[in-house]
């Protein structure tokens, strides 16, 4: 039987993979994509939690978790837009999208 834990572990693995992507990819676009993967994992967890909530109130379970996913997706969209415009600006100005090349502000 597929339980909540299954979904959660899947979500956790995906989240961690996203994290690894953020830390290990050089291409800033890929870094952003990895972040999207993390958010996606969170969405999965939200939806899964929503599904497995104990139906306490008489009116059943409200789809709060799914609503949250809406917001997450919207926010992610905005974030991506902003991130990408900055990436483009970076490319225009410095001719690179390698995160290792943007390490001049330090110490």
């Amino acid at each position, binding site marked *: 039987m597929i339980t909540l834990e299954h979904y959660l572990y899947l979500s956790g693995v995906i989240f961690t993979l996203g*994290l690894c992507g953020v*830390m290990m990819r050089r291409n800033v676009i890929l870094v952003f994509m990895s972040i999207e993967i993390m958010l996606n994992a969170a969405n999965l967890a939200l939806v899964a939690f929503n599904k497995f909530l104990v139906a306490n109130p008489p009116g059943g379970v409200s789809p709060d978790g799914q609503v949250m996913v809406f917001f997450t997706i919207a926010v992610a969209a905005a974030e991506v837009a902003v991130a990408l415009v900055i990436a483009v600006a970076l490319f225009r100005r410095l001719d690179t999208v390698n995160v290792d090349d943007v*390490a*001049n502000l*330090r*110490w």
Partner: protein
Amino acid sequence: MIEMQWLILLLPLGAAVLIGCGLHRDHKKAAFLSLAAVWGAFAISASSLPECFAAGPGWSITGSFDWSPTQDHIFTYGFLIDGLSQIMLLVVTGVGGLIHIYALGYMKGDPGFGRFFGFLSLFMFSMLGIVVADNLFQIFIHWELVGVSSFLLIGYYYTKPSANEAANKAFLTNRVGDFGFLIGILMVFYALGTADFGLMAERVDRAFLDTPMFEVGGAGGWLVSNETFLWVAGILLLMGVMGKSAQFPLHVWLPDAMEGPTPVSALIHAATMVAAGVFLLARLFFIYLPSETALTTIAWIGAFTAFFAATIATTQFDIKRILAFSTLSQLGYMVMAIGLGGTDVAMFHLTTHAFFKACLFLGAGAVIHAVHTNDIREMGGLWKKMPVTFWTFLISTLALCGVPPLSGFWSKDGILHLTHHPPAYADSWMITVLPTVTAVLTSYYMFRLIFMAWFGQPRDAEKFEHAHEMPWTMTGPMMVLVALAVLAGWAVLPAETIETFRSITRPAGASPFEPVHLDLSTVTSALGIFFLGAGAAWLAFGRGIVNPDKVARALGPVHALFYNRWYIDEIYDWIVAKVQQNFARLCDLFDKKFLIGFLVNGSAWTTRAAGAVTARYQTGSIRTYVFLFLAGVAALLALNL
């Protein structure tokens, strides 16, 4: 009512203050003020003399005010004029006044003339404060003030490095003495619960004899027997005396102090200040009285100083230094006399010594003034040029050597008499022999001086030509002093006056001693001692029969020891320059390297380095940042989940 006696202190103080506040620029006014002050003080002191002699022992005039009143103890400042201080007052103001006059001539033309008289007045104030002090703390205050006046006067020629060195040496040596002195004061003060001399004398018996054990430094301090307590306290107080009266081993400053102008040497370092120690011992005799150990110690220190200084005097060439060592020696006599219980004799010798030694110094000053050298090897034959000075000098020398019937005979033989019949606690053949040998040495070195400086051929023709007799301002005081030196003996005084003098200068409890009688044996022995010493000097320096250099060579190390003042200065120099200075450097090193360098700067450096290291983690690389972020998350979770 405010007592007139306050003026004794206020006059010199006022003079000093006025001179200090600007009058020093006007030499005449400054000198006048200073003289007026000292003679005014003399007059006031003298005014109570008849009353004092009439009333006999137990007479006193007192007055005091609260100087620093605290709940625990009210420090007072006052005066106590009893027989002892009465005599001392007269000596100090009288001799002091004469020397003031002498200084008018001696210091004539000196750019610091006004300043000099200011210092003299300051000194008079300080010294008189010791004399009239009615409590221990006041005496300590003036003890210090005398020290500083002496410092100022020794270092009067402040452009001369040697004078400054000497002044510092004098001050510091005295400070070392005062170190013990103050501890002694504290011990006695807490043991008796008072610093007032009158009350102390009343309480001393009960306090010490009825309490077998003492706690030094209150509860938790050391528990000592009253005998030990008294001995320790007595020795500590004696340290003050050693400092001021230049007793071995704190004598080193006095010969160097001759760097000061000669009137200063005469006033401070012969007649008055150095006698303060003796005076103090007489003042505090009641403390010593219960402790024979302390008295013995005093006697030995005095006897040794007397001998020791005399040996050194036999080899010196600087006229003032010879006199200085002679002073040391004589002070040793006085201290010894007190140790043997003879305060009255000591005070008497103090008085007579003040006269003739002051006169000797003034004479020496005149010589120096005339020939511009201190070295007796460069003098010679001066008696023709400076007859008045010569005669006063000679008579004073005779007085010093104890030739009857001059005053020195009476006082010194009194002491010698004491040493021949010492009290049981100090009974030792050494205590008899040492002073006698010292007396022989005294005649020897004084006549060595006389022969070398005054007789024979002038060794330095130019200087000899330059020599001349002194103006009356200088010779006058010398003549007065020599007259006193001649007359102050008992020969010319009525018996009852002598008796009064003895009784008033003898503290309660001290048993009186036999006066010196002018009988054949005494005179013979006195003359014998004199001729022994003077004759030896005559042989070597008068007639040249014995070559002193050969003797010196024959004596070898002994001569070297004497000539180098028993190497005491060298030892002290070593202690100061090596031990103390190195310890100071060690402290400095500890401060600079460890406290500042290691702890303070070290922690600052560590912090800055830590800052630099911390900032290095901010690598600028995004992946590091995300990693750190994740690491933070993992750590948080690991610690709290």
